[in-house]
């Protein structure tokens, strides 16, 4: 009896939480297909429109440079992820595999940087990038993004690398392989899942970044998608139709990614936080 009560209670809580989490997305989607006149006034609170339209979806790509923003974000996030994870993988390998002087300090610094507020480094980076003419360029965002992408991915990779068995590497060492060969030929293939997880999380973090993107790339040609959406303004009224449509558009790839890589993402989120 009590068990049945708890089961019913649990399902109720799950359904309530699930609805609370999903309702905003549902509402944004329902609003994005409403014609402009139904986005304001009493009609704004109706769930379903009688005249669904895709006008806003066309508008965001025809009248506004959202495709460009998406492309900018994609390039910046991909390049930053690839080189940050590569550099971090080598360092994380050394941290997980060897004992050396300064290891504790390195790990401490890495964790501290992952925690400190981005506003604390923006003034020198901004002044530097402005002086060398790198504001409004891809490189102008990739450089500052390294600041947190490297410590972030390095921390995760150390956690993953510690779990990779060393026996194969030991065997290779006996066979006369040097450190670089062991790392490149044996260790990296073995730890691909962890590297992949780290890359996904780094990509999401870089893709979502706002403060640097807002201040450094102000030109429409180089804006990233979060800034493009957040700073999107109409001439006279707030263009909710376009805003909801573009929100749906950027959420869809994330939903697909989350469903495909759910287990990996969760293992990445929790890797650094659980005491082994």
């Amino acid at each position: 009896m009590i068990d049945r009560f708890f089961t019913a209670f649990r399902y109720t809580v799950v359904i309530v939480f699930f609805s609370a989490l999903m309702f905003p997305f549902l509402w944004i989607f329902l609003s994005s297909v409403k014609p402009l006149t139904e986005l304001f006034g009493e009609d704004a609170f109706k769930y379903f429109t009688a005249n669904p339209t895709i006008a806003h979806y066309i508008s965001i790509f025809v009248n506004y440079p959202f495709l460009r923003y998406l492309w900018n974000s994609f390039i910046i996030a991909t390049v930053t992820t690839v080189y940050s994870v590569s550099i971090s993988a080598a360092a994380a390998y050394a941290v997980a595999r060897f004992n050396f002087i300064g290891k504790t300090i390195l790990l401490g610094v890495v964790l501290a940087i992952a925690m400190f507020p981005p506003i604390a480094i923006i003034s020198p980076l901004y002044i530097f990038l402005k002086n060398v003419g790198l504001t409004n360029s891809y490189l102008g965002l990739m450089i500052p993004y390294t600041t947190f992408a490297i410590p972030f991915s390095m921390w995760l990779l150390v956690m993953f690398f510690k779990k990779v068995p060393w026996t194969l590497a030991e065997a290779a060492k006996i066979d006369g392989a040097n450190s670089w060969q062991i790392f490149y030929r044996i260790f990296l293939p073995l730890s691909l899942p962890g590297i992949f997880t780290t890359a996904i999380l780094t990509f999401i973090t870089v893709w979502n970044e706002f403060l640097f993107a807002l201040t450094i790339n102000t030109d429409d040609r180089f804006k990233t998608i979060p800034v493009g959406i957040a700073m999107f303004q109409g001439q006279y009224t707030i263009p909710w139709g376009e805003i909801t449509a573009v929100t749906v558009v950027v959420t869809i790839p994330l939903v697909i990614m989350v469903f495909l890589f759910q287990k990996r993402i969760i293992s990445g989120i929790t890797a650094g936080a659980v005491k082994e």
Partner: protein
Amino acid sequence: MRKLTPYYFILPAVIMIIVVALFPVGKTFYYSFFDIQLNHPCKTAARFSCEFDLEKYLENYLLIKRSLSELPAEAAKRIKALNKEVKEAAGSRYVLVQQKMLTYKNIAPGEALVDINDKNARKFRHHIKQITAGLNNKRNKTKIIGMVKSMQDALLAPTFIGWANFKKYIFNLRLWQAVFNTTAFTIVSVFLELVLGLIFALMMNKVFRGRNLFRSAVLIPWAIPTAVAAVIWGFLLDGQNGIVAKYLSSLGFVDNMGNMLSTAAGAFFSMVIADVWKTTPYMALLLLAGLQSIPGSLYESAAIDGAGVYKRFRYITLPLLKHAILVALLFRTLDSFRIFDLVFVLTGGGPANATETVSVLAYKKMFSQSNFGEGSTIAVILFLLVTFISIIYIYFLRSLLKGEETA
């Protein structure tokens, strides 16, 4: 050779960390002792001593030179004398900059800047004063006077001001209001996230139909950009068309749906709602990982001994989850304390700075007022506050670990 191997592997990462993280942090501390204002012609850089901007000087001098013949003989003589002195003091750099300007080549940053000692700086100022005084009596020379005056901008005074920025902000009401807002926001939202996240985690720890779907679904709010989440909630809480604002007002939580984003309390809770919605899943996942590390056998033997649900939670789950809770709280507190995007997009810090956080205040100083000296000072204060919070948490985590070892 052997001993050096690990250093080869960490070298690239260490170089990058020093160049893009440690050096900038140090530079922010450094800037906080200067009066740097990017929109002020003489205060765009950190300087301990006087400097002389040849480019700015020559820009004006080369123009004045063309109309020297129209000027009274005495003024023209003085200008020539002044130029001679500048040329002698700056040496080869003068020729270089002049050549580049005449051939329209780009001048590298810092190339046009030369050091100038106090004596020469005083002499330069004196000359300018004499020249303008001499021209003042003549009519129709206003254009030239303007140029002579802007020649004076070439002389850059030191911007080092010591502790002045800190002295200004230590008793600054707006800063402390921002610290208070940030702290209140952090405490309220992180507390709600902990409670809801724990319930979430306890639910997800049990097997139920659709658990995988549920786990994927909770990741979506976590994965979307905070700025986009803020836009979504801006729409849901909008004073005229916001559905959630309407529901909240018909349920009696607010008098008027327009109050959500336009009053201090409404805006504060709007931020809390958006933040709780976005980050509770993250909290839940961290706690879930902690729950999964508790061996199931503990619960079984407790159940055999007759411990009920509450007792099992109170005496097994909570104590064993302490570590995971502390780590989750540490991550979330630090994250919440540096919050920028949610506030900036959802409320802009308003109404009337009522929801302004420290990061937003620092941003406004730097990018709305171009005051990088004061902005850096606020950033340094935030940095110190965040460090202080982490030290407290790490102290608790350490003593927790020690307690477990002795037990």
